[in-house]
């Protein structure tokens, strides 16, 4: 993807983030994430029903890359089955750490395919995705109990 196009997608999601703002609903599972190397602090909440991520919301104080990545993450994962979310997540984390990945699965999140070249920004891009990983683990724990 052309760098200017990537930049404009990231900027658009930063300027007008999707699914920003938390809701007061106890059926959501929440995760709070901090990035010590940056100023990022995100709250992410997920509503899961019948093995599908019905809704994802986020809010917090974060840099441009972190906000845009969280916005793209919500667009990419909402409405997906948990097993598909896990595949996307694995591929996204692989992409960010220079491991083999399937770019077709990542949809718009492919705009971060160069982030591994800026190690100090990796955490900014990954923070919201780590929150989803944390929430998925919590969902698994709940189901095993």
């Amino acid at each position, binding site marked *: 993807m052309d760098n200017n196009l990537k*930049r404009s997608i990231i*900027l658009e999601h930063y300027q007008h983030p999707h699914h920003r*703002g*938390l809701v007061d609903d106890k059926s959501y599972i929440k995760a709070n994430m901090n990035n010590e190397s940056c100023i990022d602090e995100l709250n992410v909440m997920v509503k899961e029903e019948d093995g599908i991520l019905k809704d994802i919301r986020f809010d917090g*104080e974060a*840099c*441009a890359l972190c906000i845009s990545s969280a916005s793209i993450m919500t667009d990419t994962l909402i409405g997906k089955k948990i097993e598909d979310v896990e595949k996307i997540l694995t591929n996204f984390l692989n992409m960010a750490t220079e491991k083999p990945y399937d770019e077709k699965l990542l949809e718009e999140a492919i705009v971060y395919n160069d982030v591994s070249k*800026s190690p100090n920004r990796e955490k900014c891009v990954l923070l919201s995705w780590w929150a989803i990983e944390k929430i998925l683990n919590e969902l698994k724990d709940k189901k095993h109990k």
Partner: protein
Amino acid sequence: MFRVKAILKDEKQRARYFHEMAGDSRTLELLLNTCYRIGITPLSANDGSKEGMLSNIVLELNKKNLNSIGVLMDLVEEIPNSEFNIKSNSDEITAELSFSTKDSEQFFTLIKDTLEASVIEKNHGYSYTVMSTVYNIAKIVKEALEANVSFATNEKLYDLGKCGVSLYKDNQADKVDTKNPDDIYEIIEKLKTKFALHLPTIFFCSFEELRTFYFELDETVYSKDIDGDNNGQ
């Protein structure tokens, strides 16, 4: 005007500081106590009772209180002759709300009530987004460029969704020329294409343009070394 630099440790010491900062204004004293109670450190205040002096409060800005400080900025639309500023230097980032009116007591109470309500309200408004952007700019400018930021808006500008911003190094404060502002689009283009930012600079822009400026500044600082100019161009 008293400036509190020390950490306020106990009730007795805290009350004394706030009493002295508030001058003869009981409502200002109550406001300063409220600020402290909700996690905002008041750094200085003036009750505006002396002729030629503005009423003001200066508060410490940090990432935990962006929402409350944001609602403080919203008040420029309600308090006549008011101005809201954020200023950063190597030590701290501060927010100041100042105003000139004969009835400052009424507005200190309004500010107090607004701040108290901001703590209860969980949904962040648009002013939070603006505050977050200004805070991010101040952090980058301070840490990566070792420069200062000054952000200002008032009723007229805020109503239009606009603000004024200047960026300068310590030795450039007197070189910021408010009468000859730079063009925000030229600055953004320079950041984008040449990965350069000349300091000092001052520009007026919309809040959306400010977010674009931050985005490009962030990209520039983290992807290439910035070309700082200390010659005041």
